[in-house]
């Protein structure tokens, strides 16, 4: 395997220990999706930081691994950034720090790593061999950091994620704030039934579930059973089993029984135009599920579908919030709402994300007169 890497760490000449495959990957970004073997089993993987510290290693072995990993990260420089807007060395070193945090049971060890402590044993949530594998995968295969540690920090939550599930994006955090704003002035919506369509890891469902509290209800749907098992893990960890119900199926299909009664619909549907996917950062196009990213030719297939569905599924005065690719998609959707779905919605608005991109479409189902 990988024990070659431990012998040398020469800051001046990294090309000798980056495997040739790494170099070819840099020049020919591949974008086939890779499915891990866990695809066939529905038991969700436990995030690293929650695993029992059953492994151990000496401080010096851990230090050796850490030095190797740091060298490897530094050797990347800006190559990923230049090739596909991937992470640079400083970001990778930060991820390495987080990997160590999630792995070591006793964080005070980190400040004590020195030659005198070399033989001292530390307890780990993953073995040193696993650590070599993980970091190798990170750098050589561009496997997303979040899949390696099995979690993502999002809003004030830590969510389990794994291959087959989209890693929740920081932009999407804002949807929870928008929901909080609306329900703070609207008891009727706060106590209603909400839907998170295409829930993935369950991020939005958990986020809005915590806002709604005990009087609201959330139904979270997804086509992918892996996603549902991960969402189930996440909602249970946050004690929301009584508030969030999971249903498998496509968009509104599993919600036919509540048609016309839904207080709010939130969704982060796939919105990337199919042709753009192969040009994305390798972490995304090689490893994250296409099902969660590919929105068809214009990227808007599902957004249109959601608008159509919202018109019949929302109760009068009900709210929808959809995340999009940006200004063009939002404007296009507004035109669509004003033409094909004329009269169905009111108070439709576009909300920008923190980068100033017009990312969210928000609107209300017209009250019946």
């Amino acid at each position, binding site marked *: 395997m990988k024990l070659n890497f431990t012998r040398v760490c020469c800051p001046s000449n990294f090309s000798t220990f980056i495997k040739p495959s790494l170099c070819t990957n840099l020049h020919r970004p591949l974008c086939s999706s890779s499915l891990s073997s866990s695809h066939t089993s529905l038991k969700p993987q436990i995030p690293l930081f929650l695993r029992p510290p059953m492994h151990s290693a000496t401080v010096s072995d851990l230090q050796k691994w850490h030095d190797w990993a740091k060298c490897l990260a530094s050797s990347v420089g800006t190559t990923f950034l230049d090739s596909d807007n991937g992470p640079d060395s400083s*970001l990778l070193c930060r991820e390495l720090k987080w990997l160590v945090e999630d792995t070591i049971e006793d964080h005070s060890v980190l400040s004590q790593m020195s030659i005198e402590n070399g033989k001292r044993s530390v307890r780990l949530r993953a073995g040193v061999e696993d650590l070599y594998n993980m970091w190798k995968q990170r750098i050589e295969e561009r496997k997303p950091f979040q899949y390696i540690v099995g979690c993502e920090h999002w809003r004030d939550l830590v969510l389990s994620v794994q291959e087959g599930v989209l890693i929740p994006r920081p932009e999407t955090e804002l949807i929870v704030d928008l929901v909080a704003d609306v329900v703070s002035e609207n008891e009727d919506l706060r106590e209603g039934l909400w839907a998170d369509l295409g829930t993935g890891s369950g991020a939005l469902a958990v986020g809005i579930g915590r806002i709604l509290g005990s009087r609201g209800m959330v139904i979270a749907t997804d086509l992918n059973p892996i996603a549902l098992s991960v969402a189930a893990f996440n909602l249970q960890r946050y004690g929301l089993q009584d508030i969030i119900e999971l249903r498998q199926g496509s968009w509104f299909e599993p919600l036919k029984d509540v048609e016309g009664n839904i207080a709010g619909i939130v969704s982060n549907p796939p919105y990337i135009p199919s042709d753009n996917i192969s040009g*994305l*950062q390798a972490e995304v196009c090689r490893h994250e599920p296409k099902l969660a990213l590919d929105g068809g030719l214009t990227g808007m297939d599902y957004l249109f579908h959601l608008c159509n569905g919202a018109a019949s599924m929302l109760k009068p005065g009900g709210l929808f919030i959809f995340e999009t690719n940006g200004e063009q998609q939002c404007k296009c959707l507004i035109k669509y709402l004003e033409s094909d779905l004329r009269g169905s919605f009111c108070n439709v608005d576009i909300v920008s994300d923190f980068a100033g991109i017009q990312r969210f479409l928000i609107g209300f189902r017209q009250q019946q007169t």
Partner: protein
Amino acid sequence: MTDQELMRQCEMDTFKASGPGGQHRNKRESAVRLKHLPTGLIAQAVEDRSQHMNRASALARLRTLLALNVRSSVDLEAYSPPPELLRILPPKSTVRPSDTGPQIGPNNPKYLLGMQALLDVVFAVEGSVAEAAKFLGLSTGALSRLILANDSLRMAVNELRTSKGMKPLK
């Protein structure tokens, strides 16, 4: 001012060169740097793995900076301490109405507004704790203790006193 209103007055530095973002991107640059445009004050947070948490921390730090740096002028002739200031004063203050409620400390979110109003008074009397104490119905010692109990407050007062050639409070 709510967090949202305050955010609207800020520019968030981290995000300038992000490209399309959203589903396109998986780069966890969770560090947040906020520049408050009206005052030019900058606050940042890098410790957390979640951008949301860093944003909250940066905003909290910005509020502290605003309280420490933004001054309102005070009419000493007709001075009456505002409610937010009364709340941070100890009960023995002679200007503190009995219905003010318990004294709040630095961990209370409303403390900053009180601290800001206190600094307005201290600046108006050019750093004299004895003078400020009179306006607040406290002995010089009691006001001194209040100021020394909070690091940011102490530093701001001492910076002023040093600039006026006075000895820092200890």
